[in-house]
């Protein structure tokens, strides 16, 4: 219960932080925000002083600061994110749409990473110092050092441009999932393969493991009955940390592959100074992150009751 309360406090802090930051952003945009927004709405050739003034009056871009901030945060508390300055659509509507795309991409990436990383890690951990273990160490060190955009670049050049197997960008068909999900999954599996390997090596060194083998269980049975649960505890704990990578990765990877999700929307909103959109998408990423961490806390307590106390 304590865990949930502290996560709730964290969520409120995140909302206030993002709300205030976006408010300051609205107030102190470099250049004339009204011009930019008007240009975003009507196109760069058709914007003039009159339309900029109309936008300024409509959005209340000048006026005293403090009451405006209170009102801004009040709107936020009532989950009123306003309307996008560029498209004129309610922000919430756009976000709900984008959230589906982001969540499906993130889940695909996570699933893929769990298919790649832990099995390799467990195999390597069963034979510490073996060929697979050493190869895995080199591969995961390299992959961990490589930023996601670099992995994306290499995949695009190799798979999409040179081999022409898969499209470099797009959304809608299952094959569009492969490259962005693989980009995210490679970075994640570099970490979870190491965690699985270390956990497995530690467990295989324990007396209960040797006892299980001694009483005649095959290697497969020992692993299934005595190994997997132990390996899963650090993996689930690190899932929380991996979501940092995932949420950040989503911002970059979606922009690179043109995936119509939250991260892509955030980058675009920042580019066109669409502050309500920035607020909505940033809030969604931040709160989603807190929510995931709360879920991880609960899951770890369930798997390993010793941590609950």
């Amino acid at each position, binding site marked *: 219960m304590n865990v949930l309360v*502290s996560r709730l*406090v*964290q*969520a409120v*802090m*995140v909302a*206030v*932080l*993002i709300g205030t*930051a*976006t408010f*300051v*952003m609205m107030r*102190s*945009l*470099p250049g004339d925000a009204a011009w930019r927004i008007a240009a975003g709405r009507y196109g760069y050739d058709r914007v003039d002083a009159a339309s900029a003034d109309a936008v300024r009056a409509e959005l209340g871009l000048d006026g005293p600061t403090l009451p405006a901030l209170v009102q801004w945060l009040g709107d936020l508390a009532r989950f009123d994110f306003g309307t996008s300055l560029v498209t004129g659509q309610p922000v919430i509507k756009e976000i709900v749409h984008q959230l589906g795309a982001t969540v499906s991409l993130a889940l695909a990436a996570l699933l893929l990473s769990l298919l790649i990383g832990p099995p390799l890690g467990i195999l390597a951990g069963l034979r510490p110092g073996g060929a697979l273990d050493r190869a895995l*160490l080199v591969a995961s*060190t*390299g992959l*961990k*050092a*490589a*930023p*996601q*955009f*670099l992995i994306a*670049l*290499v995949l*695009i*050049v190799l798979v999409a*441009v040179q081999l022409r197997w898969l499209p470099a960008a797009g959304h809608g068909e299952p094959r569009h999932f492969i490259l962005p999900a693989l980009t995210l999954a490679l*970075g994640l599996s570099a*970490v979870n393969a*190491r*965690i699985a390997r*270390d956990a497995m090596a530690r467990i295989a060194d324990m007396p209960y493991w040797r006892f299980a083998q001694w009483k005649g269980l095959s290697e497969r049975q020992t692993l299934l009955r005595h190994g997997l649960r132990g390996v899963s505890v650090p993996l689930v704990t*690190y899932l929380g*940390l*991996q979501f*940092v*990578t995932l*949420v*950040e990765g989503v*911002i*970059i990877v979606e*922009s*690179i592959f043109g995936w119509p999700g939250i991260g892509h929307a*955030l*980058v675009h909103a*920042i*580019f066109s*100074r669409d502050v309500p959109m*920035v607020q909505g998408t*940033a809030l969604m*990423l*931040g709160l989603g*992150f*807190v929510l995931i*961490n709360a879920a991880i806390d609960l899951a770890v307590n369930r798997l390993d009751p010793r941590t609950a106390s």
Partner: protein
Amino acid sequence: MTATTDLPLRRPSVLRARGVGTTLVLALLALALLGGLIVPGDPYAQSLTKALAGPEATAPLGYDHLGRSVFHRLIHALRLSPLIALAAVAMAGATGLILGTLAAARGGWVERALVILTDALLALPGLLLVLIVLAMVPGTALGFWVGLTLVLWIEFFRLARAATRETLASPAVQASQLLGFGPVYIFRTHIWPEIAPMMLTAAAFGTATAIMSIAALGFVHTGMRAPTPELGLMMVELLPYWREAPLALLSPVIATFALLLGLTLLAGSRET
């Protein structure tokens, strides 16, 4: 900003990894600082007739799509990102160290307020924070400096606070206090030697994180603006010309990877 874990390696391999890391970083720094002396040239000078041409004596890595020497753009980029990164890490390290030791030493509401603040900041993905700051602060380099400092100081704060709290409770510090030594002495002789090695590791990771963020945001057109030579920006500019000039694209890719790998290896393992 990626989750990093510690690899339980045997001692010699840790040292070897550190050695490789140091060599990589020093080699790239030497290239960045001395490259311009060996082959003089201008990263902004264009000669459109040579667009996408191969390497020659005055441009060892060939030319980009606007006929600018890739070599000279690369060495400029290799100075820019590490400079911003080091400035941010220095600022973040100082802030985190001061606030962290202060929080542990004072306790009470100072500590509680700082912990709540860092918890809230930790709940924001770092890249998101940098993006928001970049949108608010005029000047991209300044924005990166402020934004990255804001992201990186948390790690230093947490390390400094944890280590200080542990050290302050030790019998050695109690003895010093009983002997009447002041806080400055206690910090210098007891706390700093505990923190210093951790701070160095955190600084190497922080530098890698910062360089990675600058390049990543450059790559999606939200970081440095053209025509500034920047690693991520160079890659995204040269990506469409991969077939015509593979070397031009590969050089920033390899340089960035080598730099980040070097810094990660240099940092070595870290307790998480």
